[in-house]
């Protein structure tokens, strides 16, 4: 297979690069390389708007001179550039301070098994066919409802890439992966007030994508539902985060329990290990080897093998997320999280979104959030939101121009239920999340 030959060739490049680092006096080094090619087309109002051909490459190296470290990167993979990149990293290392915690991982933690995780499924679609697919996607959105008045278009994207990573402890591995997506964004207009919404599907295998027609229709449906939105009066209320935005609540958790935030004491979950941070029905875990999943990987950014992890059990925090460096700073062991988590999941109950609305009875269903508004040190949370007001378990009207606020520590403790409407389009997979009470600011 041609890709395998390419991987072997690029592994040699990393091999040579590590030798060059040694030659220039580094006591240890690691290096990574990536090559990505892709096609991206956008169609708008029934005609092609852009066709982009992507082809990018890059390599990065980190060298250690004892406990001093330096990094460099380049988009040029030539032998001459490799030499210069290593030299640049070595120059930096000379001026970096001795850091007792710096260095490569312990060898025994490095991955030795490289399962085929089913990440590589090239999609040999021509630009012409991709354009037709995008047009059909947008058509289905524009035909959905008379109030769909304009469009930002539909896009079809396909990427394939090769990643190689190696270090001077003898780790060297490369793999190929693909990622394809179809997306659509349309605008609705009622009484001169415009709203926009979108939908997308993403997968490693094009066969697993939702159909272009479905995506277009769903984008239009979401746009139409938002028309005629109003603000709310300021109040306290239960809130449901719909599945496609609920992952944000969990990514704040991941930030707070990552080694870097903990050793810097910039986390609202300092000293929370083995304490109850969620209600006891919550279990959060990681499945890094799910075949074909978007977050799957055999090893982390340092080559440490990934494994299935229980992060929260019965509401209790079991583990921090550590890289070699942050683990050493905290006098702990790396958990294989130098590149974050791989397929984070939360256990769901048996309620779908409609049932979750019934459980809430009266409150706010949030479907979009705006702005950053999260203080990682204190957990204070305040973000712009839009969604739907719900009474007696039924959606009453769209809501916009409000904020929702609370503190993440309280919000986690106040989770009442997690829906089974799991959104699998990302590295964090969750259903909709019902929270007992938050502050809503409006008119």
């Amino acid at each position, binding site marked *: 297979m041609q890709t395998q030959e390419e991987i072997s060739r690029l592994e040699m490049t990393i091999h040579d690069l590590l030798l060059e680092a040694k030659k220039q006096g580094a006591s240890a080094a690691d290096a990574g390389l990536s090559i990505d090619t892709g096609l991206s087309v956008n169609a708008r109002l029934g005609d092609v708007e852009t066709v*982009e051909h992507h082809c990018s490459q890059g390599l990065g190296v980190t060298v250690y001179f004892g406990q001093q470290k330096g990094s460099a990167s380049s988009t040029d993979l030539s032998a001459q550039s490799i030499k210069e990149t290593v030299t640049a990293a070595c120059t930096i290392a000379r001026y970096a301070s001795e850091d007792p915690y710096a260095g490569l991982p312990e060898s025994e933690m490095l991955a030795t098994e490289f399962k085929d995780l089913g990440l590589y499924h090239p999609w040999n679609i021509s630009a012409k066919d991709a354009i037709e697919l995008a047009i059909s996607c947008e058509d289905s959105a524009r035909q959905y409802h008379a109030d769909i008045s304009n469009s930002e278009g539909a896009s079809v994207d396909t990427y394939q890439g090769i990643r190689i990573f190696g270090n001077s402890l003898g780790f060297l591995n490369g793999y190929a992966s693909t990622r394809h997506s179809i997306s659509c964004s349309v605008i609705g207009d009622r009484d001169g007030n415009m709203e926009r919404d979108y939908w997308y599907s993403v997968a490693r295998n094009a066969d697993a994508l939702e159909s272009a027609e479905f995506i277009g229709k769903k984008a239009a449906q979401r746009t139409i539902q938002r028309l005629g939105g109003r603000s709310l009066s300021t109040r306290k209320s239960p809130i449901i985060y719909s599945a496609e935005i609920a992952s944000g609540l969990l990514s704040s958790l991941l930030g707070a329990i990552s080694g870097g935030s903990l050793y810097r004491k910039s986390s609202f979950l300092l000293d929370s290990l083995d304490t109850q941070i969620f209600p006891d029905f919550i279990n959060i875990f990681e499945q890094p080897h799910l075949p074909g999943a978007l977050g799957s990987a055999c090893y982390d950014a340092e080559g440490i093998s990934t494994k299935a992890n229980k992060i929260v059990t019965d509401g209790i925090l079991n583990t921090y997320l550590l890289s070699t460096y942050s683990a050493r700073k905290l006098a702990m062991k790396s958990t294989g999280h130098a590149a974050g988590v791989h397929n984070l999941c939360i256990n769901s109950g048996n309620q779908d979104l409609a049932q979750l609305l019934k459980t809430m009875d009266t409150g706010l269903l949030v479907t979009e959030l705006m702005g950053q508004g999260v203080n990682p040190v204190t957990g204070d949370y305040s973000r712009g939101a839009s969604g739907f007001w719900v009474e007696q378990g039924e959606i009453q009207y769209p809501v916009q121009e409000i904020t929702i606020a609370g503190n993440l520590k309280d919000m986690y403790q106040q989770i009442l239920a997690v829906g089974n409407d799991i959104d699998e389009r990302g590295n964090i997979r969750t259903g909709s999340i019902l929270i007992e009470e938050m502050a809503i600011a409006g008119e």
Partner: protein
Amino acid sequence: MDNSALKLAKQAILVPAGLQESNIYRVMDQLLDGAVDNGDIYFQSSHYESWVLEDGIIKEGSHNIEQGAGVRALCGEKTGFAYSDKIDLTELLAAVSNVQAIARQGQTARLALPTHNTYPQLYAPANPLKSLSDQEKVDFLRRIDTETRKLDPRIEQVIISLVGVQDHILIANQGDSLAGDVRPLVRMNVSVIVADKDRREQGSMGGGARADYTYFLEQDRAIGYAREAVRMALVNLDAVPAPAGSMTVVLGSGWPGILLHEAIGHGLEGDFNRKGTSAFSGRVGERVASPLCTVVDDGTLQGRRGSLPIDDEGTPTQCTTLIENGILKGYMQDRLNARLMGVQPTGNGRRESYAHTPMPRMTNTYMLAGESYPEEILQSVKNGLYAKNFGGGQVDITSGKFVFSASEAYLIENGKITRPVKGATLIGNGPDVLTRVSMVGNDLALDSGVGTCGKEGQSVPVGVGQPTLKIDALTVGGTNV
């Protein structure tokens, strides 16, 4: 010109690639030979370095080199685009044949482009990376760290970063001439964590410019950032929950100008208005702000983070009036959208790199000074919020809804600033918010040079600014209901 910048850019890009100018004109001929309206090639060679001090030691440093060329063909509303990390003739010709597939049959609408030969020099074509030796850079960071830690015993953590970029760019957009620029950019940031009893808070302040590292040595800028970061963190240690609901909001001068960037700036970018997807579409000539408000986008300010003599399409930048005495005057344009809307480009065609296509983007966006004294503005408020510093913001240009998050704010009670409140997000509607501006301060200030704007996945450096402003009603997203 800056002919020297063009000369330097040619030297940095063409010489290592073994290319002659005539090679590029040949490729351009080939590109424009297809049935396309116009096209361009953007060459870039970029050197970037960063240094990070943490825990009192120089912990990280990196040096990055990025170079390549992007080729674009434009035909009506259609764009074909391809790029390569290699700058050589074979790659360029391959890219040309890829992008020409977009060309239509038959008639083209090629426009003759004016040739620009002279631009004001907004910054020296110096290399910031070489403006201090590596030893001087790390000594400087250590000195600022030591001085920062002396500022208050409650400081637990100090992280200082220093980043420098030198960008060489060359733009070919017709068969016989090149535009070019050498763009320096430096940025420094100090962030601290302070702790007192059971409370812990962060504070962060930074600055930057199109200059070299000596910028931070002048006027005690670096230690100034440290003092600000520590002051903000300490203020927040005492902050009480922010109020929730609609109230009078006074925005401080300078960086709070992010209000303008989010609330109206993005909505006035040409692409959205050409497509009719902005809440401001078709509203030129209408009142969109109180008569006190005049807002400009100005790429020609000396040395500012958002400044450029020419944009990434080779068009000279300018000072574009967006809103004059409350009336919407015009949009920010790149070449594609200007052509399709039948107006002149305004020098706002910007791209993150050769691997991205240009779009209308802001440069330095600010509101001109008014006549009120800041104290007088505060005194006029019975109950409200004074928001002095902000984090980021976001806008939905179609509905016009925007947010921006206060990181330092106080209650105003009976015309006086009283207690600090916790950070809160403010939300409003772009086309309405400036109509509620009832007082404009005489204290126009631009931000310290930290802004980065994201649009469709592309980041570019920008500036914002404003005088102190009073907005009669804006929704404040606190927890205190």
